[in-house]
């Protein structure tokens, strides 16, 4: 986990999320069809695709927020459809989600936000509840005085960090990040990428990151999966993406912005 080798052979690694032949649609519109995807333990997977292709839909389908029409999703070796409500609750403890807008509870302070999942799922003493919440808040790079602020008093970058602290509250195995660097300035985005990489190493996380940020893809992602036409167009390390000759991937990874990111990232 420590020495992350992007091009390591993936066959002998544990698959932590296994999506098979999934189909999701709304009304008579099918968004995902026959999609397969594996996420391996301990990797940072970058998930790219044009807007409206269903990146968020897949994330939400895995999390059970959007019903799927067909296919199976296995997380930590368990088929999500076969779980009893109690097992399902247990499963939800193993993942944390950073929503695009943060989705912090606006009536609670940052610290209370971080404590919500702890109070729900764990039996902690008041002292530990306090200390752990502060620890998580510091781990994501927020100052202690941010702990007692309300979300409306935070800047965009601080909201993302606070939301990440909440996502990490239960020490999950998997973290889903929905466009974590969108809305941040390039320096803030770079810092956030670094933070994710650091936390991934310390906590042994598996990170599933929906992103548009080419810099993130170059600097922190071990592997990239590209979504298009309702399925995975290509997956693999950045080199594989660059080598692909699918038209959308070519324009994505060889466009003007991509060249700038490559120059910066390499």
């Amino acid at each position, binding site marked *: *986990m*420590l020495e992350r080798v992007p091009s390591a052979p993936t066959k002998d690694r544990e698959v932590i999320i296994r999506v098979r032949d999934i189909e999701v649609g709304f009304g008579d519109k099918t968004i995902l069809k026959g999609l397969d995807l594996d996420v391996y333990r301990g990797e940072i997977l970058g998930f790219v695709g044009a807007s409206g292709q269903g990146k968020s839909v897949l994330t939400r389908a895995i999390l059970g927020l959007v019903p799927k029409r067909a296919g199976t999703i296995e997380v*930590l*070796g*368990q088929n999500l459809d076969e779980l009893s409500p109690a*097992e399902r609750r*247990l*499963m939800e403890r*193993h993942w944390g989600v950073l929503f695009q807008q943060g989705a912090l509870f*606006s*009536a609670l302070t940052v610290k209370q936000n971080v404590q919500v999942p*702890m109070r729900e799922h*764990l*039996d*902690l*003493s008041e002292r*530990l509840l*306090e*200390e*752990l919440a*502060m*620890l*998580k808040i510091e*781990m994501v790079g927020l100052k*202690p005085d941010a702990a*007692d602020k*309300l*979300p*409306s*008093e935070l800047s965009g970058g601080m909201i993302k960090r606070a939301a990440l602290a909440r996502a990490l509250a*239960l*020490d999950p195995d998997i973290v889903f990040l929905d466009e974590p660097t969108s809305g941040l300035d390039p320096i803030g985005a770079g810092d956030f990428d670094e933070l994710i990489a650091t936390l991934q*190493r*310390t*906590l*042994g996380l598996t990170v599933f990151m929906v992103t548009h940020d080419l810099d993130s893809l170059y600097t922190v992602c071990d592997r990239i999966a590209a979504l298009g036409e309702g399925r995975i167009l290509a997956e693999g390390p950045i080199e594989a993406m660059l080598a692909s000759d699918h038209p959308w991937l070519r324009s994505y990874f060889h466009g003007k912005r991509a060249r700038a990111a490559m120059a910066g990232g390499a």
Partner: protein
Amino acid sequence: MAQSILAQEPQLRIEQAGNRVTAFLAGRWTAEHARKVEALAGEISSQADGHHLIIDLAGVQRLDTLGAWVLDRTRHEFGEKGLTSDFVNASQEQHILLNEVAYRGFQELPKVKRSRFVDFLVDIGQTVAEAGSDLVRGVAFLGELVSAFIRVIVHPRRFRGTALVNQLEQIAYRGVPIIVLISFLVGAIVAQQGIFQLVRFGATPFVVDLIGILVMRELGVLLTSIMVAGRSGSAFTAEIGSMKMREEIDALRVMGLDPIEVLILPRILALIVGLPLLTFLASIAALLGGGVTAWVYGDISPDVFLTRLRAAIGFNTFMVGLIKAPFMAMVIGIIATLEGLAVAGSAESLGRHVTSSVVKAIFMVIVLDGLFAMFFAAIRY
């Protein structure tokens, strides 16, 4: 599989050799077993107290931030007592985690000592001061509203006719069924009680006077205003409040549009036009309800009812109710928009302002009605 994860509780074995105590840990030192982890850490502290401590992590299957935090806290406590303590046999990942977590005391935020009594007084003082500033804001806003209105009269092209019609539909037209129904029922109930009381004096026919005057002067406009404050006042506050939260009001401003002209004036004008219309309908419905009851309970036929009604009420009775309506509309509209503009940030704040919009509007409507009653009594109208 998830069950077996839970099964392996944290375990502890303590061995002592001379002044050196070794704590052998095993199992999962994770958040699921928080109480156990804390208890075992306490056991390490108490049993190894006064000795040098070695914490052996060889048997630990999983260590998360909670486990690492508690262990490092224990180590830190030993350090403070001048005793050495060390981790041995930690895997590389555990090492990183222990370093990253690195126990430190979080400084307690200074807690201000408060006395309940002083708090109570402060609360009262603040409420009074807020009520005062509410009044000032209300008057200032009325001024803004009037100047916006004059601007619109000078430049009629800036007037939002479509918005006005749309608001009229929302406020007046869609409010008709419920307001008519409620007024009909209240009219019927008041007439019934009136008959029951008046029959003892053999004065049953006077129920027509009672109903006519009460409904025309007070009930019609009061019921309508309260219903409109609940229906439309709350809607205004919620609409304007959520637009404020999502910076839509600022967006209007930077486009050179005046939010008062675009959003608020049409709403308040619609209220000022709509409320008298609704009051008229409400009064008719209440009279109808009273008439039906008078016929059923008091044996007063519709002809008799109408003849007596004509004698009992004059044009001034009708006008007293109607004159009040636009003022009620103004008060409801101003309170609703001010509360909407005061919304900040959270969803909770939106809820609070919608509630206080309705409560304040109903309160002010009743106060205003009382003032009007005194006024009309003084001028004998």
